[in-house]
């Protein structure tokens, strides 16, 4: 006997008709409550499922990050960077004007992405999404470090204190990638590229040449990145009170780690594009709607470096590197 009928049976001094009427009313009340539960369950499902639904409806296929035929792998090498920006068209105008990049647009549903190319080679990705309403957020370039196995790298990173921002996910064409914050809070990504990591060569003007992590404790950060990526770690001489560390792999310098300068609050990676003349490129960035964050100045290698922001505020580094250095190295060997 269901609960409504049982309740009606126990009602004192009621006629059969009254009992039947009461049972109907109780059943109706119970059905309403059940419908309410179902409606709330539906609301909960709607609140949690849209991202998965969109993902299933529009599976993403991204181009390979390298067009090299040789499948070389260089774990620890910075092999890609993605810009997040609220205005993809404006970003294309800025970076196209500054570095001569051209763009291949990829659109799927609400996904607006562009692959920047230089001389026919893929250089970077740009991802458009709105800044959440009411939030003061910083557009930024996301640094991708090469790994052989994204799942294994993810386990290593998490076991050494990283936090996951996006779990491993594989995209046809590109490979598997995941996003983390390191133990001090700097965001980075790992990428197991399905087309390999590209050969080691000197970046041409307009290509990425260097990456730096600015963080509160370079020694601790070096320990983390060494554990996850297997880098060799070198301390560099310092005359500014800051600590400077080089992360190396395959006997090449892959990235630097530096103490956050006074006044900087937020640990972060910054990537540098090789330019022929940093002062001229910085002025050009301003003419294109950007601004100068760090004025051009000589760095340890002898060339000038500068940091500019694109019109939406994303910082990017500019770095000179003379071909003469390569000739000097040849003479040293």
């Amino acid at each position, binding site marked *: 006997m269901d609960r409504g009928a049982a309740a009606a049976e126990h*009602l004192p001094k009621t006629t059969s008709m009254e009992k039947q009427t009461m049972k109907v009313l109780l059943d109706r009340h119970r059905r309403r*409550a059940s419908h309410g539960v179902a409606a*709330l369950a539906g609301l*909960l499902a709607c*609140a949690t499922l849209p991202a998965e639904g*969109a993902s299933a409806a529009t599976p993403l296929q991204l181009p390979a990050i390298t067009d090299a035929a040789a499948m070389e792998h260089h774990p620890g090498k910075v092999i890609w960077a*993605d810009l*997040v920006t609220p205005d993809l068209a404006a970003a294309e105008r800025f970076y196209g004007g500054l570095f001569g990049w051209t763009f291949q647009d990829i659109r799927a*549903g*609400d996904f607006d992405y562009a692959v920047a190319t230089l001389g026919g080679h893929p250089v970077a990705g740009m*991802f458009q999404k709105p*800044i*959440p309403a009411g939030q003061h*957020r*910083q557009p*930024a370039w996301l640094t991708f470090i090469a790994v052989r196995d994204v799942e294994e790298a993810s386990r290593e990173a998490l076991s050494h204190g990283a936090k996951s*921002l996006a779990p491993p*996910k594989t995209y046809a064409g590109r490979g598997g*990638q995941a*996003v983390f914050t390191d133990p001090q*809070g700097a*965001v980075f*990504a790992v990428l197991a590229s399905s087309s390999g990591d590209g*050969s*080691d*060569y*000197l970046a041409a003007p307009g290509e990425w040449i*260097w990456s*730096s992590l600015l963080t509160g*404790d370079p*020694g601790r950060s*070096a320990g983390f990145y*060494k554990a996850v990526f297997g880098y060799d*770690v070198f*301390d*560099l*001489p*310092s005359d*500014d009170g800051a*600590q*400077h560390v080089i992360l*190396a792999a395959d006997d*090449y*310098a892959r990235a630097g780690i530096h103490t956050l*300068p*006074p*006044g900087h*609050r937020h640990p*972060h990676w910054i990537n*540098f594009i090789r330019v022929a003349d940093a002062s001229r490129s910085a002025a050009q960035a301003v003419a294109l709607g950007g601004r100068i*964050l*760090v004025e051009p*100045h000589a760095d*340890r*290698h*002898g060339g000038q*470096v500068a940091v500019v922001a694109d019109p939406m505020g994303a910082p990017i580094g500019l770095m000179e*590197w003379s071909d003469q*250095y390569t000739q000097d*190295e040849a003479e040293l060997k």
Partner: protein
Amino acid sequence: MRIEFPLWKPVLIAGASLAVVCACAIGGPGYDGYEGAGYVGGYYEPWGYDYGGWGRGYRVGPPRRGFGRDGGHGSPGGRPTHVGRPAPSIPGRPRR
């Protein structure tokens, strides 16, 4: 007469729904975790990049091969370092 209905169920689900909505609104550890079309990448950082303070001598670039010799610093945090061996430079071979 008092008849009790299982009203705790809708109350519980309403509470769970509210918790989910609040979690989505609050977000992760200071980063915007939205994934457009399921793409993992593209994270707005917390606001507050300050790029002043790069004083004289604050150098972030790579050393040139043979020029950026290790100064023999210690091993902060106990991590291994290469003392005395010159730090390598970036690749110098031009693209073929």
